[in-house]
């Protein structure tokens, strides 16, 4: 079989990107695959193409609604018409329509919690599923930085689906997490594809300041002098907003982006950034998925990230086009306190665990009354079905320890005196073979190669609605 021909005939691409062909061949050969591919390396092609070469449907389990929506949109943009998405946001009519015609879709996206609903499970059992894709598979790992207990349910449904082939996809996974993916999905002899994590065109800089004020001054000066486009990552929604407002005041075209904004506004910020109408986006870690911008030259972490995995994912949004890009991590004395808070904040407290275990009514009430946070409830509800109260407390305590370890890794990064690139790779159990000329702040970095002088732009005067309409529809 000529895979290149199928690729060209189906999508118009003349060649595969690194890793894609190997993964696809193994899938078609009937093997389970765990693929570690950095974001932007065409992960989805690994199941898209096989879908055209196998009988039946491809079932993609996707943990995040926004991610699912983006993937469906991308698939449609590439001309795939036979795509359905099942998630809790469907209205009843849409849902019944999709479920009624389920066997006609080539791609079915589903959220993990829908997967185990008896009615839907029954529907799925009647299908011929050729491939089950666990997207963002690191979410299955309770040690991972993004653990989603619902994800463990994939294993529960496998027998009902007749044990289809499995493709587990993730952009970031340590050896430990890969092992867990294998174990939880019950993959006995999977083919494991690991793409080198290292991105040669990205150089690492770490800047330290005496206090927050100095840090802020550096940022203002830097973005006023140097050309974007770039992303400034902040630790909290509030901070992203503050930074954006501050930079706007000095004439920088910037906007903030976080998960608390309404969906339409988030799309608008993405549009503006994609169009080059914005120089910088100040954002929480919510920004990234669904953003396909190749020429991002800078990623600045204004506050220390909470895990190396998260850091690498965010940094990886720079330089997709292969041009030199700079990752700058800013640190001010005392930031580690903030880090500690951020890291432990999203774990359920013992108090919350007790409340959920002792609650006999609708647990959602606990959220409404402000006794238990929604994220906590999600995690605890899962464990309540599997473990005793005491064991859950132990479970969460272990996760807490793991998170503390993760933040220790970040702390080490900040105080590193050796090569940053080597250290980051080490965290993923990979070794650095070839060092690029511009490596990192501790091992040769010529800033001139990354900085372009910024031309100041005139702040736009308010358009009339007529002139804006003419610009949008020049027909």
């Amino acid at each position, binding site marked *: 079989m000529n895979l290149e021909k199928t690729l060209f005939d189906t999508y118009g691409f003349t060649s595969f990107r690194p890793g894609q062909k190997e993964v696809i061949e193994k899938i078609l050969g009937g093997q389970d695959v765990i693929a570690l591919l950095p974001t932007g390396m065409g992960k989805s092609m690994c199941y898209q193409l096989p879908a055209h070469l196998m009988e039946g449907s491809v079932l993609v389990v996707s943990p995040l609604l926004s991610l699912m929506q983006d993937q469906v949109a991308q698939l449609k943009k590439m001309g795939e018409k036979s795509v359905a998405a099942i998630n809790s946001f469907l209205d009843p009519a849409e849902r019944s329509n999709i479920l009624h015609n389920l066997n006609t879709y080539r791609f079915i996206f589903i959220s993990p919690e829908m997967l185990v609903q008896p009615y839907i499970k029954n529907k799925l059992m009647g299908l011929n599923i050729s491939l089950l894709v666990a997207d963002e598979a690191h979410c299955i790992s309770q040690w991972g930085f993004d653990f989603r207990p619902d994800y463990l349910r994939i294993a529960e449904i496998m027998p009902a689906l007749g044990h289809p082939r499995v493709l587990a996809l993730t952009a970031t996974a340590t050896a430990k997490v890969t092992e867990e993916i294998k174990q939880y999905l019950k993959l006995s002899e999977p083919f494991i594809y690991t793409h080198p994590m290292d991105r040669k065109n990205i150089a690492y800089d770490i800047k330290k300041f005496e206090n927050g004020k100095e840090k802020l001054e550096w940022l203002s000066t830097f973005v006023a002098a140097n050309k974007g486009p770039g992303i400034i990552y902040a630790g909290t929604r509030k901070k992203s907003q503050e930074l954006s407002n501050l930079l706007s005041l000095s004439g920088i075209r910037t906007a903030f982006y976080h998960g608390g904004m309404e969906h339409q506004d988030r799309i608008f910020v993405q549009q503006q950034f994609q169009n080059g109408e914005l120089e910088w986006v100040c954002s929480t870690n919510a920004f990234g998925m669904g953003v396909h911008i190749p020429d991002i030259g800078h990623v600045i972490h204004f506050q220390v990230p909470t895990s190396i995995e998260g850091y690498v994912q965010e940094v990886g949004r720079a330089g997709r086009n292969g041009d030199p890009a700079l990752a700058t991590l800013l640190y001010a004395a005392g930031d580690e306190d903030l880090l500690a808070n951020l890291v432990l904040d999203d774990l359920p407290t013992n108090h919350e665990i007790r409340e959920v275990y002792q609650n006999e009514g609708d647990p959602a009430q606990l959220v409404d009354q402000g006794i238990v946070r929604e994220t906590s409830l999600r995690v605890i509800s899962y464990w309540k079905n599997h473990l005793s109260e005491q064991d859950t407390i132990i479970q969460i305590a272990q996760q807490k320890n793991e998170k503390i370890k993760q933040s220790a890794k970040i702390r080490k990064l900040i105080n590193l005196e050796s090569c940053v690139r080597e250290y980051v790779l080490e965290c993923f159990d990979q070794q650095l073979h070839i060092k690029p000329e511009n490596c990192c702040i501790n091992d040769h970095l010529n800033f001139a190669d990354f900085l372009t002088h910024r031309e100041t732009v005139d702040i736009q005067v308010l358009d009339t609605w007529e002139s804006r*309409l003419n610009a*949008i*529809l020049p027909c």
Partner: protein
Amino acid sequence: MLFEDILITILKAVDGERTISSPYHLIKGKKSGQTIQDIGYYKLHPYFGVMPKLEKKVYDKAVQKLFEQGFIITDGQVVRMTEASMALQTPVPLLNGWKYRGKEQLFMARLSLIVQSLSQIHQNQRAFDPVVIAEDIQQWVKKYLHKINYRDAESCRNFKTELAVSLSKVDVDAAGKRIVVQRLSGFKIGGLTWEQIAAAERLEVIDIKLQAIETLHAWMDVLETRQFPMMSELLDGVIQQSSLTETARRTEYYFRNGRSLEEIAALRGLKTSTIEDHFVELAMNDPGFDILAFMDGSLYSKIIAVSHSRNTKRLRDIKEAIPEAGYFQIRLALATKGETL
């Protein structure tokens, strides 16, 4: 119209007879008997459900400001206007929340996707990220675009002309129209976020959102005249056929089939008080509602007279004056107030 104007207008209407949270329920579109009947009593139709997602903390902040400015004071449970606020002139609203029920969002979503599609396609962009991802709206727009023969430059021009001419007929100021058009996007032009618009207009986000909604309501009113065939099509399914809530409609159905109030409650497994709420809603909405099925004409006249002479709509006050009237009868009578029997 600013958010503050809405609050003052509503609070003026219910002056001294409702709590400070009544405008909140009204603006959010709460479908409780109390809220629905207040709309009729106080003629507050324009404001019903104009902001279904209004956050309590945003509302509280706006209310707090009114207190601080000395525009309102609390008096026990209820809230009262002051001399300062009574003297304020608020603009006449072009809102019509009761009629549109938040459906302006559907209109706007369709419009956004049509405009974006035309913009991209007529500038030779075949693939683009749709600004609206809801599947049903995408399907609707796809059909619409085929119907208007969207690839045709002439058709694009006609659409744009209808859009521009109909919008220019909308009786809001330029800011309102600018806001709506800033929420549209196209090739190389992104839509603006509420925060961005608010910063440029030097207003609060909530005021910007309200102006957008008011502009859309007024625009849909213009389109309803059917002088703009391409644009009017966007109203498909947007305007509610009946202004009754779904549940009241069901009660109406049983009532028309000769069932009594008690029978309906039993049939539907609802409390009689809930069914009473429905009847109040019916009385308010249906000019042909037969109030004499629930009280004789003299009692009705008495209730109306007391409400007028004492200038009150508080049930307790009226009940005190006419002990023989039931609370349900008073509510029904007030709901039809102004209509001649």
